[in-house]
């Protein structure tokens, strides 16, 4: 069978962890993913046979990476162009494994993949050592708020399974991670191609006392409980399909119960939750983070898409100016004074880049310029943005879901940002 793949032994366990593979191009991410899927029995035999045939035709040995790199262009060039998401499970739980491209040109795809992950494996080629994307990816993970990262030193077979090479890689890279405030959970020496230290301890590296890849996976903590954060309910839409006037949206964080008073910002109107509507099942009495719900309210106040519901005692910030860290993915530079569409939760509004405080190289972390006029592709910058009207937000540290946003230019998302702090509003609001 050709060009088809199916997860086998799929399971119905309740916990799913999403893991992203990052690191420099050619350091073995797709090979490791292929190896993990193979060793956990998640590749149909037909698919293995298919890849064998493709490899034979190309005159090379079995390429585990081809299990994921299914596009013709990917196989011809031996690189991953876009993110694949695959499914597998261990005895402990279900996994979604996100294989991100390591090529600089496809950084936007790496970010698309990583932004969905709970935890990350960052791969370093033992022979080639730390490269441009090895550093950049770690920094971007920290900006995306991914805190659990394991560092995988791959291709140990190419350095004779040398403990010295492993130790010196660990030392140098740990130093880099400290400068970006990231603590690696662990460093693990492997050979993805030969399957050493992947599903079980390798006899080739007796000096390594730690865990295998699969053991490390199972030891990652499950993601945080978002329902413990302040209640944030960005309004998606208001429905009037029948007699009911339903305020639809997803509870991003926190929880709310029938009877609670909800304050909608920026309008400042509030009323109590009357019912939580559901089709084909009992009406719930409370809603929590992650649930897409529909509320009816006691009073018919005017709310619309973009309003954010909160509890009066835990208010987010409101301003038309804020300071943020932006990573830029556009081919055209981001310009000081440039106008962009800002999307934060369900808010969508025109904004202006008021000033670019500093620009840094997202790999070396070297400060490129202060008070810059523009930001190039793949650079990170700290800047002040001002929006046409006041918007509602939190800092990324406090409530990530309402502390992050994207910038749209010419129809596409070109940048992502996290809010560092509120800046003094220019419209003189009394909030």
């Amino acid at each position, binding site marked *: 069978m050709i060009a088809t793949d199916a997860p086998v032994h799929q*399971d119905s366990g309740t916990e799913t962890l999403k893991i992203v593979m990052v690191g420099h191009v050619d350091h073995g991410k797709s090979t490791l993913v292929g190896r993990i899927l193979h060793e956990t029995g998640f590749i149909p035999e037909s698919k293995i046979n298919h890849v064998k045939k493709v490899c034979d035709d190309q005159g090379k040995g079995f390429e585990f990476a081809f299990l994921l790199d*299914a596009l013709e262009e990917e196989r011809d060039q031996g690189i991953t162009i876009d993110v694949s998401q695959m499914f597998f499970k261990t005895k402990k739980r279900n996994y979604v494994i996100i294989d991100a491209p390591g090529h600089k040109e496809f950084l936007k795809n790496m970010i698309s993949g990583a932004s969905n992950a709970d935890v990350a494996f960052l791969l370093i080629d033992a022979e080639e050592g730390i490269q441009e994307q090895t550093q950049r990816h770690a920094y971007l993970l920290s900006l995306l708020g991914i805190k659990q990262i394991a560092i995988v030193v791959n291709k140990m077979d190419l350095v004779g399974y040398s403990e010295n090479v492993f130790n010196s890689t660990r030392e140098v890279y740990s130093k880099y991670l400290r400068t970006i405030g990231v603590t690696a959970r662990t460093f693990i020496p492997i050979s993805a191609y030969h399957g050493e230290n992947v599903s079980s301890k390798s006899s080739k590296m007796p000096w390594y006392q730690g865990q295998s890849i699969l053991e490390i996976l199972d030891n990652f903590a499950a993601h945080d409980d978002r329902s413990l954060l302040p209640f944030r309910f960005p309004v998606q839409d208001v429905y009037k399909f029948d007699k009911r006037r339903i305020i*639809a949206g997803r509870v991003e964080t926190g929880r709310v119960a029938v009877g609670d008073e909800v304050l909608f910002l920026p309008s400042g109107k509030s009323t109590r939750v009357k019912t939580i509507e559901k089709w084909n099942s009992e009406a719930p009495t409370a809603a929590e983070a992650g649930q897409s719900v529909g509320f009816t309210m006691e009073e018919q106040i005017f709310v619309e898409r973009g309003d954010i519901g909160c509890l009066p005692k835990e208010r987010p910030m409101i301003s038309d100016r804020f300071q943020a860290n932006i990573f830029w993915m556009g081919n055209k530079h981001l310009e000081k004074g440039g106008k962009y569409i800002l999307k934060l939760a369900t808010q969508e509004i025109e904004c202006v880049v008021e000033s670019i405080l500093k620009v840094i190289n997202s790999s070396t972390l070297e400060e490129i310029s202060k008070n810059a006029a523009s930001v190039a592709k793949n650079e990170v910058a700290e800047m002040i943005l001002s929006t046409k009207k006041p918007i509602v937000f939190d800092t990324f540290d406090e409530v990530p879901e309402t502390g992050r946003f994207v910038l749209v230019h010419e129809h596409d*998302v070109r940048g992502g940002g996290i809010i560092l702090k509120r800046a003094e509003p220019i419209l003189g609001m009394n909030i």
Partner: protein
Amino acid sequence: MDHLDKLENQSIFILREAHKKFKKLAMLWSVGKDSNVLLWLARKAFLGHVPIPLVHIDTSYKMPEMIEFRDRFAKEWGLNLIVGQNTKALGEGMQYTQGRINCCSALKTAGLQQIMETYDYKGLILGIRRDEESTRAKERYFSPRDKNFEWDFKDQPPELWDQFKTNFDENTHIRIHPLLHWTEVNVWEYIKRENIPVVSLYFSKNGKRYRSLGCAPCTFPVESSASTIDEIITELKQGKTSERAGRAQDQEDTYAMQRLRQKGYM
């Protein structure tokens, strides 16, 4: 929330985004298990209503059970059903013997293209999943198609933090994939939990059942004794074959699906 609740909530969020952002929106209903789950999720998202027209591309080669099912539930659930058919290609005798890829392109892709043009749809909701096959594993939730209906898989827009591509050029359209993160087993677990009707062809008769539904000449049943949903779930959890193994067009050549999907196939 259990894992099915999480999948359901994410899909509802996507459906609501699509409904809000696209005035000219349709949902593709192949009558297969996935699109039935999708339809069910739409009723959840819109609290019992389906405010989106459903498009069925009838190649004329679909199995009769599928057409019966379609007509029955379109009526029962009060759906706004639009049936599309590439009558010109059929009139010229298009069928799988002229090459399966040619046939899929003419009867499915071009058939869909005609409907999209006639009704000027800018958003199209489809029930594809990442675990079905390798090119779908690389899809976005909101995936643009250019004026020629083509998918530029080498340059997909970034998609992060559930901020989707909802701005686009006049001559393009967006494919929306609310089930992308589900697996085949998830679909069956959900069908069981919600008691969603499905075509009887999925259940074993005389030692065989259909695992994926399509056109009669190109879709083959697989060996199976699973005659209930529970048995199907058990079978899938133990299985080692691909879901689309019985779909002949996938096997035409090494990159058949890539080529079909690049040109606008589902």
